[in-house]
């Protein structure tokens, strides 16, 4: 067992699970989506993406791409949140919440792909 692989897989899967936790619930209901959970999702996704840096293989390149997509989507979601709550006084309306949650949904799709790639790599190693 390789500790590096454990940590790497841990962060990739944690990124997906946290993302799922934030995403689940009624899409436009602020009660169902916690801002701290989004914060955690962003931090874990950033770490997972940085961990994918510097691998020159084709698989590594695709993993990095999924990470970058997820981070881009999540940061857009957080910017929408900050603008809605702090910059313009719209507050957390259902429309804003729906935008944030759908953005995080996209990020989750990227995370799903990333985990699938991780599993493919594991299966390939087995043979």
């Amino acid at each position, binding site marked *: 067992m390789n500790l590096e692989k454990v940590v790497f897989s841990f962060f990739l899967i944690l990124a997906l699970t946290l993302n799922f936790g934030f995403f689940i619930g009624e899409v436009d209901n602020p009660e169902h989506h916690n801002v701290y959970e989004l*914060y955690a999702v962003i931090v874990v996704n950033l770490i997972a993406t940085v961990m994918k840096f510097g691998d020159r293989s084709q698989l590594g390149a695709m993993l990095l791409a999924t990470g970058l997509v997820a981070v881009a989507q999540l940061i857009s979601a957080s910017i929408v949140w900050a603008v809605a709550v702090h910059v313009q006084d719209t507050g957390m309306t259902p429309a804003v919440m729906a935008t944030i949650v759908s953005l995080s949904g996209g990020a989750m799709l990227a995370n799903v792909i990333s985990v699938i790639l991780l599993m493919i790599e594991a299966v390939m190693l087995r043979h």
Partner: protein
Amino acid sequence: MNLVTSLILRRMRTPFILLITVYSIAILGLILIPGVDDKGNVWHMSIFHAFYFISFTATTIGLGEIPYPLADAQRLWVVISVYITVITWLYAIGKILTLVQDSTFREAVTRSRFRKNVRTLHQPFYLICGMGETGHEVVTALTEEHYRAVVIEKDPDNLNEIRLNELREFVPSIIGDASDPVELEDAGIRNRHCKGVIATTASDATNLKIAITSKLLHPTVKVVCRSELKEYEENMLSFGTDHVVNPFETFSDIFSMAMKSPSMHLIYDWLTGAPNTSLSEPLYFRYGHWILCGYGRFGKQLYQQLKNHEGIDVTVIDPSEKLRDEFIDSEADSHQKFIIGTGFDEKTLKQAGIDEAAGLVAGSDNDSNNLSIIMTARAINPDVFVVARQNEFNNYDLYSATMANLIMRPREITARKIRAVFLNPLLVDFLKLAADEDAEWANIVVSRLSAVVGELKPHIWTAEITSETSPAVTKAINLGRHVYLGHLTQDPASRHVKLKCVPLLHVRGHEFSLLPEESQDIRNGDRILFCGTREVKNSMDWTLKVMSSLNYVMTFRTEPESFVWRLLHRYFRKVERRSVPR
């Protein structure tokens, strides 16, 4: 992914992860610790504000306690955060700086920059492997003619020289082993603009490997190799290397030219030397008794030249008994002598007959011995004709100081040959044909050359009659006009003045004619080798390329070029003709 970016990303992984972790902990702390707002209510910082706050404290900008003055518990946390975040930043920046100074990283950066430079060469270029003296001469000659060059060299010191040296064109260069196919690929061997590969490293084995690799990776490329050993030369030629330059053989040819007549040697020297260097003096070869010190590769070549010549007898001096036996076996029926010895002592030289010798060859593979031989011989017989073999490039000045009549400098000879092969392939043919001519012919050529060249070595160029290189001439020929060589050597700027140049060789298909006459007609596809100055070449380009210049030299009439002027001209000429009574 690019190697450089990948290296940066891989090395920055740890610092980035640390930064993200430290930031997230600091932000989390600020969110959780309660503060008091301006109305005295308990207040929690939002994520957005916490991120803002940590961003400016971590980078030591410090905009103050925003939006409300902080509670002491928050301040305590901010103090901790400031220290950990600032230290992490310092660590990350330190990591970047170490990476930039790292030698492997720098190597990767230079290599990727080199690859990019080669890839963006969108014009014909030559690949030079080995940047010794030969390589240096060749690169200078190529860039003078505005050809591009790419250089691979093992020794960084030699490259520093060209990186500082002001060449006419930018020359991408890399430190590396040219026998490695990967290096050759990086240097653009597969590039369709790569026109030639020149292998001039010091080792024959490396040159052979370069030639094989080049011919395999890019079969149409012209490959020229330097080789000093016969078996390598044959191997190189066996798979289609275009030219193999063997300095010993080439020198032997030069020596035979010098033996034939002083003019013959002058022709070689003037035409193959670097342009704008000073002209050499004629060399008066002496017949009679010759002493040959050193019977190695060099000595054997010269011996073959000397022994077959009327009026020359040779005494060979060499310390090797094995060579003496070999000599006696092969030369049993000749009257030439062989003496065991080194030749730098008076006794051996006297025994060989230095007192009344006409010539001496100092041809061992040791420079100190050669120099000593020359000094000793000159002390006994100051008039002896000296042929010296220089081995180490560093001894250049020492050999020049001996005032030897003919010095064999392998690198210079190789450079001359390669320059001719690449810049003026016809010059190689010219010299080959010239070698068969007699001394009288050589005298005529030298007198014609000295009339046009002046003080410095001439510029050699080839005029090709094709629609790309000389559009005006091909157009005139296609219109059915008769163009003669005399037209091309006419000055297009002023009538009745001849350009100061000598046409050396006219080639049509496989027909070669030496020193063509002015009445030689010109057809499409002809190639003519000229010798003159660079200014003359530029003047001739006008005749070759611009229709009105060609018309002028053919008719001596200035013709109008613009449309309106041409109409007027035609109109007035008609009037003129009509006014003439029948």
